């Protein structure tokens, strides 16, 4: 298979592994050679390469943005090392966008905390007596059973 010159059909199959650098040196060289000599495949290669690059960049961008958000989120919870904290604080001094993002996290936290607090502030469940009662009854039951069934 793939002896001699590669056909345009071979190239369609190999173009993505070629872009991802998943081919052996020998195959890679042969694909490159075909591309140099075939404007049709070259054009195809350019289009696919641009598309894949932009997808990859979007992924990287998103991942980077999330990493930053994750760090800010931990910072708001006071769950970062003092070294990281210092670094974040000096970035905050330089970037309005970061400050905005931090403020948003904090307003979410405030809304949640206040809501939780108000919601249950006056809730009286009074379960403690029931639970203790049940535990005592169970203990008595076990003692009786132990006594009769050694």
């Amino acid at each position, binding site marked *: 298979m793939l002896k001699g010159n590669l056909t345009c059909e071979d190239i369609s199959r190999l173009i993505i592994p070629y872009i991802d650098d998943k081919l052996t040196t020998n195959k890679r060289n042969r694909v490159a050679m075909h591309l140099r000599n075939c404007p049709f495949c070259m054009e195809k290669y350019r289009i696919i390469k641009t598309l894949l690059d932009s997808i990859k960049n979007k992924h990287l961008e998103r991942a980077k943005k*999330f990493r930053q*958000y*994750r760090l800010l*989120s*931990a910072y708001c*919870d006071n*769950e970062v090392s003092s070294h990281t904290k210092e670094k974040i604080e000096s970035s905050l001094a330089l970037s309005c966008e970061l400050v905005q993002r931090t403020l*948003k*996290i904090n*307003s*979410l*936290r405030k*809304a*949640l*905390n206040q*809501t*939780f607090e*108000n*919601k*249950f*502030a*006056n*809730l009286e*469940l009074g*379960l*403690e*007596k*029931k*639970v*203790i009662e*049940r*535990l*005592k009854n*169970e203990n008595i039951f076990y003692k009786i059973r132990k006594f009769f069934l050694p």
Partner: protein
Amino acid sequence: MKYNLKNNNLDELISLAQKGDMEALEEIIRRQQKNVFATLYYLDAKPDEIMDLTQEILFKVAKNIKKLKNPRTFKSWLNQIIINQFYDTLRKKQKTIKKVCLDNDEEKIKFEIPDFASNPYQRIIDKELEKAIKNSIHKLPDPFKAAIIMRELQGLSYEEIARATNSNIGTVKSRIARARLKLQEYLKPYIS
């Protein structure tokens, strides 16, 4: 109460309870019940089951307190019990639902916790926000939901959450961040 336990901190109460002091145990239950109830509420426990479930969890705490090795890990331990009990019940119920009923239009029981904000206008606004928050939390995927509840409702540290959910701190960090991103999106109309 024979003597006043109200001023004892949780660690002290736990070590008393582990020595068999029933009054200390009762005080622990008294302090934790609201937490348990609120956690179940935001985990989306069914209204007609939430009280039973709360009681069951508190009973497990009372019964097993002697098995807790380090009182410092009480919060993680409690949350482990909450989560296990909650998802166990859910799983069992899903099984029985599949078996029993296809067309059971069971009556939905209305369930509202009365709120006590003093100003009536503020009360309406709070109520809207509360509903939106509750619905948004219910929409979160399970691991995000549990993590954000433990963090924001109960104030657990990342380490405590990691211990309760059997995961590492990095995962907890990510889950909380993801939960926050989602909540920010869902609650955009309510939070500036």
